[in-house]
């Protein structure tokens, strides 16, 4: 039992390090990248959905005509 748990743990650790962590060359850029990246690694829709709704609400406030034209164009595109 303990051996099985140990081998599963080893497998998980090996899986974690199949790729080396990203290094963008400049330490501050790398830290920014990691700070932003963590939001997209798990549950990305918690960020993406409110952000996209906000973008299009703002666009609708600027011009409803653009929103209507864009939605019609994309809907014809399916």
């Amino acid at each position, binding site marked *: 039992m303990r051996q099985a748990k140990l081998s599963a743990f080893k497998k998980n650790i090996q*899986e974690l390090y*199949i*790729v*080396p962590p*990203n*290094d*963008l060359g400049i330490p501050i850029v790398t830290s920014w*990248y990691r700070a932003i990246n963590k939001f*997209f*690694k*798990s*549950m*990305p*829709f918690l960020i*993406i*959905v409110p952000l*996209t*709704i906000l*973008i*299009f*609400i703002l666009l*609708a406030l600027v011009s*409803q*005509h653009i*929103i*209507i034209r*864009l*939605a*019609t164009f*994309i*809907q*014809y*595109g*399916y």
Partner: protein
Amino acid sequence: MDINTLFAYLIASLIIFARTFAGLLINPYKTVRTQSISGTVSHAVIICLMSLFYFSLAKPTISEIFLATVSAFAMYILTIFGFSILPGDGTFHVRLKRYNATWALSYVPTIIWFYASFYLFLLFPPPRSESMQGVVLSVLFLAFSLSLLAWKGILAYLSIRFSSRVQFYRVLYYIFLYLAVSIPVWILLYNLHIFRVPFV
């Protein structure tokens, strides 16, 4: 393989696909990483079948269904071959196996978008009006479309990252190469009326 074994294999594949789909929603990073190691083929097969079913719904004639299906499959095969040729960790065949397992997952948002747009087209056919309901529906539809595009972008990035196992800048370079080759193909397919929105 007898019919019972085939049926059991199909059910098992569907259950695994459902779990992977939930994983892509909740934890895309870990799911794509796991799939790049397992190298499973069944997801690609299920997505191919879903695409074929979609084309049979959306296209009016057999020849158009055939043309759309062949074009989509050819683009998929050429894409995974193209990415596998580019430098990365492991041999060409190893990378090809990984891409086959992970790149197919980046088609999940595309397929959801196409099915949703198809049924939305039937329920609320365009053009939209500038009434309150029209604007709200348009905002929701555009937000839904952009969310799926962002999800697809994340899955495509992770697919390249874990299949070629390269660093961030090289992933961006590979995406740039992919777009440089694909955009003319999408324009060609658009002009030939095969896909009005590219099957990316």
